[in-house]
């Protein structure tokens, strides 16, 4: 089992640690836990985990600060845990380099899905990036810039394609408004969430079977968007 992915969980609530450890161990992961930020940072440095699951509400250090410290030396995926109504902290941590988030209380499927996506993206950075992303009837060919719905090619404007390509390349991961806007329109437009609202509506109209109940381009309230592709 030494090849099993290693997950470091940093949370100050013993019950949460116990539950996550039980479930992840059951699923075949190696799990290390820490209840304080300092301890967690030390363990991260010595054990070099494949994924860090980090609670934002630690008693001894601001969660955003922990993200920053980790990002100073490692690119390993960070999944943050936080309570409802802390969108500001979540967005700050995501923009500081965290990869994804989970809102407490969360279901175990959600946790496992995030872990899977995080592992896939971390291995991708080492290996080759998949150039074709499939989601239901949609095929997005990132190298040839072709988007198909079934057999029909979908005509997209320049920015629509840029936005979709960025989402698809990061499929499964949440992307913050700022991240999306900076990548498609540039840093000067990082505050114009209304561009995203309008473009997402256009994309959904062109791509989603039911644009009012999207299945592939999901809104993460107060945070950003997430593209769901086939596993």
């Amino acid at each position, binding site marked *: 089992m030494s090849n099993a992915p290693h997950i470091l969980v940093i949370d100050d609530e013993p019950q949460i640690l116990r539950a996550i450890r039980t479930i992840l161990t059951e699923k075949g992961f190696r799990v290390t836990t820490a209840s304080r930020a300092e301890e967690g940072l030390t363990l991260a440095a010595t054990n070099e985990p494949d994924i860090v699951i980090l609670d934002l509400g630690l008693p001894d250090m601001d969660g955003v600060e922990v993200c920053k410290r980790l990002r100073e030396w490692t690119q390993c995926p960070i999944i943050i845990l936080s309570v409802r109504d802390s969108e500001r902290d979540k967005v700050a941590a995501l923009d500081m380099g965290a990869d994804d988030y989970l809102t407490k209380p969360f279901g175990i499927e959600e946790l496992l899905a995030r872990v899977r996506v995080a592992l896939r993206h971390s291995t991708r950075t080492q290996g080759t990036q998949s150039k074709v992303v499939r989601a239901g009837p949609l095929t997005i060919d990132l190298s040839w810039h072709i988007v198909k719905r079934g057999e029909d090619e979908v005509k997209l404007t320049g920015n629509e394609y840029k936005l979709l390509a960025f989402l698809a390349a990061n499929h499964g991961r949440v992307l913050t408004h700022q991240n999306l806007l900076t990548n498609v329109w540039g840093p000067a437009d990082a505050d114009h969430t209304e561009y995203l609202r309008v473009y997402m*509506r256009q994309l959904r109209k062109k791509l989603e079977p039911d644009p009012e109940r999207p299945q592939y381009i999901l809104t993460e309230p*107060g945070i950003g968007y997430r593209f769901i592709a086939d596993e």
Partner: protein
Amino acid sequence: MNSANMRSSSFLPRFWRYFLSVLLIASITAIFFALREVLDTTLVALLYLIPLGMITAFWGFGPGITSAWITFLTFNYFFIEPYYTFTVHQATDVVVLVVFLIVAVVISQLVGRAQAGLAAATARELEATQLYELSTALTGLHDDHAIAQILAKQVHAVSQGEYVELNILGTDPFSFHLPEISTPPRPPELIVSIQAPRGLLGEIRLWRGAAPAISASERRLLQTFASQGALALERAWLAQAESRAKVLEESDRLKSAILSSVSHELRTPLSTIKAAASSLRSKEVSWDSPARTQLVAAIDDEADHLNMLVGNLLDMSRIESGALKPKREWNILSEIVGSVLGRMRHLVEEHEIEIEVPENLPLVPVDYVQMEQVFTNLVSNSLKYAPVNTVIRIRAQVEDESIHVQVSNQGPQVPTEHLERIFDKFYRITAADRVTGTGLGLSICKGIIEANGGRIWAENIADGLAFNFTLPLTWDGTKPPPLPMDTETE
């Protein structure tokens, strides 16, 4: 107030009063001199008394007594033989001169004293009027800022000072000054402390400027003003303390209401979870029985329910404390509605949902997460009261300068008199044990909609109940910014 200041003569500076007195005596003397041949010496003496009396009456004791002595000399010099000397030959003339001097001085003194008395009385009356005005103005004021303002205004008016500053201590110290200029760069001419039985409440600082120095009576009047101010401040602070106590009492009562409602509401899902979890643990339920699936589903559902209750409580406390600050952005209403219904799809299965939210509605400047909360609460409320298999309709359209949204259901109508009150906290029309929830959902909607610049109300419609709310189409008076250019197709 200085008594000399209060007289009509106060408009004339001292020098001019003396100068005019001498001028008057000189002109009278010139007239008498011209008529010297026809006027008897005694008559001249008598006639001289008229201007003397007038001078004392108008310009005061000093000019009066000075004029008396000048008249005495001119009378002697011009009208008593031998002329143009101060010598006197006839005994009768000596008598006339002496009597004239005595009468002139006595008249001056009497008239002067009467004038001074009158002036003092006028000054006292003015003081009394000013005090009366101040206490009338202060009556009924319960705001310390308003009191300080009135006090400063009155002190400024009465003292004719250049600058007045009031420093009020207390729990929330502040300072007020008149007029709206910067503080003069020198120490104030007068500092009067505002003293109350329980301690120092503040001080009045007065810059008098070029005006005459502050007299004892002015100081006394300002002291009286200060004590009036102290009384008013104490009264205001007592009233504030009392109303604070009332608010505390009210919030205490509310807290107990919340506690009792919450403990009841929290215990219901907890009981289910406890029962399900313990039976799963007891091995009474076999691993592959359908009962096990049901128990696990119950734990999952009730945990969600608990989470929602806690969320509602947090929202409510945030609204109550004024901490609900919307993060407004330009949003698309249909996206919000779609995302809410997507999340609630399992809950709405037993009802029919009809959505008439045109996707080309203009953008609305609202907080996305909070608006999701509003739709979630309104739909949950409809699900709770409307019978299964009925229609829940969500409609939105532009009306004037806002978007009008309606969430309607075919549930029971609400008596007209209750329509407004259903947005109150813990307000229920039906008995609390028949429906679950904290009784907070609608009041949270109200708090959120109002924080986002809209209005919410309920109305009975033909076949049920409708919740209506409006959302603004402009944000601080501006419309959404235009989208940047884009290439046509890739």
